[in-house]
């Protein structure tokens, strides 16, 4: 298993390098300019100077190599300096956002807490809802519960979050006034009052996202449990006189959760990546909102950095899913 992991990690390096190049070229080729938001009152000569100051007038390969150096060499030094109070970086040029002139990693650091809180909670709650629904739906296939669960999953999966989000805001925040419409990223939970506020501002976005996540995972769970229920070992267990609860929860469930765990692991990068649409609707200003904002103003360094981190997370969680699969299912052996 260890050699397998190492091998996978090593093959990930060229993959990621290739991904980073492709992203860089894609973003660079995309139409738009970092100066499109600058008022037209700024004359062309000044615009050219601004482009030069950002380094945006350099050839694309020069900028790519510089970004590679900053991402893999300079930024880790800053991280070490930050952790251990050392001074390896010595003020070297970090990856700076063109729009805000702030280091890209500082922006990501500011954005990560709210994304992890909201999207993470939603993912967790989504799993908690999905598993029982999926298991029971399979156990009582074609019952009214299964039909209702199927309907719920289809609705949750096919109604887009920008629709459910806006409907919820309209009803519960604007008309009824129960929840705030704008997420306060500065709220720190220190006592019950602030905890209550946090719950209130998280309620709507978490509901929307949890519904969406639950829909997907519950379908996987259902089909996996169904598949196992028809296996020989289930018949054997029942023949041995085991109760249905034992059969379902002890034997079937353990086997059926193997693919579900993989699906959950593969979905983890989205938790870090944030939910672009939902974050924008609820003004959460997380990673997803930062990415879409950066795309709007063609802030290449920030887009590149965020999308590349997504790529790293996806490769990483793919590996984790494979390893988990191997651990959970003794029949799978990689070596």
């Amino acid at each position, binding site marked *: 298993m260890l050699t397998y992991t190492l091998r996978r990690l090593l093959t990930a390096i060229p993959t990621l390098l290739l991904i980073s190049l492709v992203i860089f070229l894609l973003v660079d080729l995309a*139409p*738009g*300019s*970092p*100066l*499109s*938001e*600058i*008022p*037209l*009152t*700024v*004359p*062309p*000569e*000044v*615009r*050219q*100077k*601004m*482009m*030069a*100051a*950002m380094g945006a007038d350099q050839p694309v390969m020069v900028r790519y190599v510089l970004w590679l150096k900053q991402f893999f060499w300079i930024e880790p030094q800053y991280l070490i300096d930050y952790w251990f109070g050392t001074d390896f970086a010595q*003020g070297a*040029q*970090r990856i*700076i*956002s*063109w*729009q*805000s*002139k*702030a*280091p890209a990693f*500082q*922006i990501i650091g*500011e*954005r990560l807490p709210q994304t992890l809180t909201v999207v993470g909670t939603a993912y967790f709650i989504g799993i908690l809802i999905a598993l029982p629904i999926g298991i029971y739906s399979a156990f009582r296939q074609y019952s009214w519960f299964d039909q209702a669960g199927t309907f719920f999953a289809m609705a949750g999966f096919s109604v887009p979050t920008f629709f459910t989000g806006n409907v919820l805001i309209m009803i519960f*925040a*604007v008309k009824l*006034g129960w929840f*705030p*419409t*704008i997420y*306060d*990223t*500065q709220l720190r939970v220190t006592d019950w009052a602030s905890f209550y506020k946090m719950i209130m501002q998280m309620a709507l976005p978490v509901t929307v996202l949890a519904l969406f996540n639950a829909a997907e995972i519950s379908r996987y769970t259902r089909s996996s449990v169904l598949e196992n229920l028809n296996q020989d070992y289930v018949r054997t267990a029942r023949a041995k006189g085991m109760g249905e609860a034992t059969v379902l929860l002890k034997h079937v469930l353990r086997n059926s959760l193997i693919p579900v765990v993989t699906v959950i692991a593969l979905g983890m990068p989205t938790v870090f990546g944030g939910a672009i649409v939902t974050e*924008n609707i609820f*003004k*959460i*200003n997380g990673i997803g*909102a*930062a990415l879409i*904002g950066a795309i*709007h*103003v*063609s802030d290449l360094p920030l887009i590149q950095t965020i999308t590349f981190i997504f790529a790293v997370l996806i490769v990483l969680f793919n590996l984790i899913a494979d390893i988990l699969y191997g651990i959970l299912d003794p029949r799978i052996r990689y070596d």
Partner: protein
Amino acid sequence: MKLKSALLGAAAAFVLAPAAHAERGSDGDVKILYYQAVSTLNAYLSSGTKDVEAGSLVLEPLAGFDQDGNLFPRLVESIPTVENGGVAADLTSITWKLKPGLLWSDGTPLTSADVKFTWEYCTADGGGCAQGAKYEGVKSVDTPDDLTVVVNFEGPKPYPYQPFTGGTAPILQKAQFANCLGAAASTCTEQNSKPIGTGPFMVTDFKVNDVVTMAANPNYRDPAKPAFATVTLKGGGDALAAASAVMETGEFDYAWNTQINPEQQTQMEAGGKGKFVNAFGTLVERIEINMTDPSADLAEGERSTIKHPHPILSEPKVRAALSMAIDRQALVDVGYGGAARPTCNLVPAPAYQASDNTGCLTQDIEGAKKLLAEAGWTDSDGDGIVDKDGKKLTIVYQTTVNPVRQDFQALVKGWWNEIGVEVELKSIDPGVFFGGDAASPDTFQKFYADVEMYANNFDGTDAEPYMAQYLCDKIPGPDNQWQGENVNRFCDPAYDAMAKELSTTNGIEARGALVKKMNDALTKDSNVIIPLADRGRFSAQSNALGGFVMNSWDAELWNAQDWYRVK
């Protein structure tokens, strides 16, 4: 009427009275929403209006513009003029006298050295200063003593108030920014996000493109102000949600730039928690006519260049007909409601330089048809489209992707169809249209279309640099990488001569008269530019926020020191 205004005045005085007695920091937190979130507080590195506005709470220029567009002293004792000796008789220098005893929010004194440093900062090589145009023509800045700043110009400057005035040219603290000159400017994250200023507030926390929190500046020059102890300046969402947060849910006290359609405006106002405030400045939505041939049959590098005059639109009568066919009031009613008003001028304000040009406000379809006929365009084959020498009058009309602009396009297309002009509509992503990328065929400078629509304005109140955009040598083309503001490719020696005269004319009235003449030359006399609507600033103010005065000449937050909580 007189009694009514007297009563209103008394009522206003009554409402304003509590402000005079308020203490600094007595009114708690004021919540401001900028749906385009704030990226930096340093106007010199800004990427848009939002940053300049937010920065104006902290950083101040020597003088600002009030709601009527008049300069008023902020950090100086008075506005220098030729009469009071502050501006040299030969117009080559201006002397500003700082108010004595001014302190930065960190307690250190503001001196003329800071002012001089600000000029050095914005003109340093490699800094990419976004407000470079404010310091154009400045030869040197002298500081004879701690409170005196002398700005020397390279030549006579009839309008010497560009440097150090308005929210776009605030004074930076030398001690804080000393290591941020030139290429180092963008690495000074701490300084750019938490500048030390002389304004009513100082930054306590800054989250990029998310939220800025500020506290009352303990060293602000008026000990009773500001009334608010803290400011929360939040970003994110869109104009509609921002308007809703003030007008419907009451979560915020003020939301910037809530440009929403008239229907939504009425719906929001029904919320009863606030009101929309507007003020008109110089932002004009216009249709620009391409005087050169954008035909795709021409070779790349020849297309839309002065080598090929436009085959149809070079004829003044056709341009006049296009303008006459438009019902500007209908456009405003559909697109902007209270946020705009119809105009025939390129320079709609301030009054002293705005032409009294109203001829275009009444739509005249028949007149437009007649003009086309006079120019030889008639519908000879009865298909509803006019033609001449076997060629149909077809034009391509481009603008950016924007719901209001698409409504405008549809309406204008309808009217133009009525007079027999066939119109092909095109809409382009704003990032591309305004991006200025020389390789893209879709920038507004390249103008590969017959007419295009967008909005433009000028900084401050003086229109000279704005009028100078239409000089012959500002025409974009392949030789200058398609950079240049004269997108119409308009070139008239008489106009160039007027622009030259303006650059040496002194006196507000003479300058105003000249600007009016130039405005008319571009609009009603030639119809090279077809102005549509004068777009005001349009924001939402909560009923719980008092003292707010809308301003279209400076940052909207220009008088935040006078804001207070209505109890």
